[in-house]
């Protein structure tokens, strides 16, 4: 297992920019291919957006964290927040095969998370939401 990279974020959407820059730097340090990095960026973007938008309905400033590390041929990310318990995997899959008029936007972010990663797990431990993302690195 390599070094665990860690980023602490505030509940503000402007943090997505910092998340992207941090992932870029991690990708370089861990020699991750651009496509895998893009997949993690999009998935974490969607999950972080959910945390910022819904995890702290009482408002005020809160901090939560993202960690990223490499384990052999796998890249793993862990998002941990102490907001409202929320399992993104319980979100219904969007209906993709519809006409323009019928098409709804909901659930697309979590659909990307499921689609772009090889394994997604949720747990609620010690009062915190943990979402773990894993993808096999191409050789």
């Amino acid at each position, binding site marked *: 297992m390599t070094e665990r990279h860690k980023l602490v974020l505030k509940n503000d*959407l402007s943090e997505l*920019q910092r998340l992207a820059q941090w992932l870029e730097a991690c990708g370089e340090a861990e020699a991750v291919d651009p*496509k895998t990095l893009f997949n993690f*960026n999009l998935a974490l973007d969607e999950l972080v957006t959910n945390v910022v938008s819904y995890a702290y309905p009482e408002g005020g400033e809160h901090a939560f964290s993202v960690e990223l590390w490499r384990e052999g041929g796998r890249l793993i990310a862990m998002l941990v927040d102490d907001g409202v318990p929320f399992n993104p995997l319980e979100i219904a899959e969007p209906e993709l095969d519809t006409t323009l*008029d019928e*098409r709804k936007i909901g659930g697309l972010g979590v*659909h990307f998370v499921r689609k772009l990663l090889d394994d997604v797990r949720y747990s609620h431990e010690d009062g915190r939401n943990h979402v773990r993302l894993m993808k096999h690195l191409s050789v």
Partner: protein
Amino acid sequence: MNVSEEKIDNALVLKVSGRIDSSTAPDLQTHLMDCIGRAPTILIDLAETDYMSSAGLRVILMGAKTCKKDARQFGLCCLQESVHEVFEISGFLSIIQAFATREEALQALAG
């Protein structure tokens, strides 16, 4: 993210550069909704958009629906590979017209 607009005959082309995520999408929404109504054809040129999340797709979907309701033409062009992938896995490519080049798009939509 930056948005610039260009009028080409009957079409209004919105060129979006940079990242479209949940922090920048509201700005795109403002631009797009302001444009619809000013031309019979709206084309979004994504040649310089290197990233889009579901927040951006939400705005694009809203634009496509509004144009359809008003009987206007709506399309996208010049999607980079990663943005194309996002459109593909969201199923949007079967409901929104996307073209390889601006010329192709203008010919098909406004021609």
